[in-house]
């Protein structure tokens, strides 16, 4: 595949501020291993953008760079108009992040977790109190507010974690395999919330290795061995390859080679 083919810069007619995320030749190497290999793409505001790939394809490494958790080896990217190399502090105030690891404190209560993260994002006490009530109501957790987070079922924990990562009203939310280990019904519910979030004008950047979830995305990029090998709307991709499902497209593209390899 030529490098020309790999350049998926978005619509050049759009001004830079139209993009929630734009990456140019973004690369991350760990020693001799290249986890992310010169990826370039853009994500429009309000889009649900998916990163599909096997374990070790470089999805998490890429997302960690966008969130300012990891400096790139070369290339650059802008998130919410800020440069990931030099302005990660501004980025952190504008983005939400929820990782595959459950990130709430299990030994704190539901309300205490909300209060803590609200405080960390610099919200005022009144703001936190208001948000807490609103959140508990949305999640129907009012009667569990003083229960330890550890006592919640996994699906609820993940919804709570998602809500907490939205406390400071970020314009972009990064979800790194948010539905890992969750039953299909909870997953469907979770995606309903993702649609609500996108409906409110926020950009959702989500990584997954579930093919059904890939179908839900507005736009999708398929990662393989650190590279983006295909990008587009799920329907558009099916048309292009003349295949019925994302599963078939994925297998067609990576030739059945979805061994988990080179996990950083």
């Amino acid at each position, binding site marked *: 595949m030529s490098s020309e083919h790999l350049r998926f810069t978005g619509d050049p007619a759009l001004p830079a501020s139209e993009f929630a995320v734009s990456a140019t030749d973004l690369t991350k190497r760990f020693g001799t291993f290249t986890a992310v290999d010169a990826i370039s793409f853009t994500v429009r505001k309000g889009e649900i953008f998916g990163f599909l790939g096997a374990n070790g394809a470089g999805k998490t490494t890429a997302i960690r760079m966008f969130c300012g958790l990891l400096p790139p080896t070369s290339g650059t990217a802008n998130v919410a108009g800020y440069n990931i190399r030099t302005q990660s502090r501004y980025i952190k105030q504008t983005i939400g992040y929820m990782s595959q690891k459950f990130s709430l404190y299990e030994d704190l209560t539901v309300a205490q977790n909300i209060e803590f993260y609200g405080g960390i*994002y610099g919200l005022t006490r009144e703001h936190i109190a208001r948000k807490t009530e609103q959140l508990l109501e949305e999640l129907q957790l009012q009667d569990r507010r003083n229960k330890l987070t550890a006592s919640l079922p996994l699906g609820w924990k993940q919804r709570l974690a998602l809500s907490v990562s939205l406390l400071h009203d970020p314009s972009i939310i990064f979800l790194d395999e948010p539905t890992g280990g969750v039953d299909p019904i909870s997953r469907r519910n979770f995606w309903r919330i993702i649609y609500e979030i996108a409906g409110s004008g926020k950009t959702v950047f989500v990584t997954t290795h579930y093919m059904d979830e890939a179908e839900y995305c507005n736009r999708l990029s398929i990662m393989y061995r650190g590279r983006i090998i295909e990008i587009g709307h799920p329907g558009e991709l099916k048309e292009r390859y003349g295949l019925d499902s994302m599963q078939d497209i994925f297998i067609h593209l990576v030739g059945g080679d979805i061994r988990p390899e080179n996990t950083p």
Partner: protein
Amino acid sequence: MQRILYLIQKEFRQIFRDRAMIAALFAVPFIQLVILGNAITTDVTNVDVMVSDLDRTPMSRHFAERFSTTEYFHLVLMEPDYNALRGHLDNGRAKLAIVIPPHFQRDVITGRTPVIQVLVDGIDGNSAGVALSYLARIAEEHQAQLLQTEPALGRSLREARIIRSEPRFWFNPELESEVYIIPGIVALILLIITVFLTSMGIVREKEIGTLEQLLVTPIRSTQLILGKIIPFSILGFVEITVAMGFIYLLFGIGVEGSLWLLFLESAIFILTTLGVGIFISTISETQQQALFVGWFFMIFAILLSGFFIPIANMPDVIQYLTYLNPLRYFMVILREIYLKGTPLHYLLPETIAMAAFGLMVFSAAVLRYRRIIK
């Protein structure tokens, strides 16, 4: 600032959530004090001793009896056969053999100095040394008594113009080792709390993934560190205050010097231990690793601090090595303040050394932490 307060609040909530933790925090100093204060004592009592009286005179018997009337020694047998002594020492029946030479009485009366031979089982060199010093004291006391009852001896002594040395022990007149050990326990408690809670607290967040979550928030790494070390330092200070209360109740030992000075010195000391805790967190991925490294550090810090083994008893090379151990200085400072009430200006060299180490270790650890996080 507000963010740090939220971090501190969270940390305390987590600590108080865990009842086992609370119990440990208050039980540990108590147990340490009771066990270390009473059991780990370098005092030597009831040393099994045998006496071989080769003189068999009233005076030699009188001297031998002294060993059955003191708590330091336990007279296990009188062995008239000098050659059998070695066997008794070998099989452990006695740790110490005292041989009263023939003509003991005659020599005393005529003013010649009889020489008493002592055979020591030196396996526990420390105890043996202490036992020997008790023995010397008994001999001295005996001598003093003889001066009054044996005019001939008195005459000869006066002629010899012997000046008797008489050591007097201040601050710890009974030479009780508890008094010496106990202030050291305060240092140990502070060391354990700050090193282990700090390192494991940070690594725990790494393990469960909350650290990563915090890193995507606008919080600065300095705030993150302060949010960890402030609560654990507060806990450390509460802990030593509780320990000092226990010490007073259990052993009747109060702080002779200024409590404020003691706290100030403690604050300087924990710069090092917090630094070590942060450093350990940067090289450990799991709490077990952190525990292991922390343990390794602690053992060396304690062994080379003069807590158990007096530094003066160590080989020269090791003695120089102890200068690199901030706990060494803190031990001296604590004992001085606790037992003698020494004011700051006499403790300046130790304080300065400790502060220098503290600043170095702490800033190096924080820099490394910030680099790792970036």
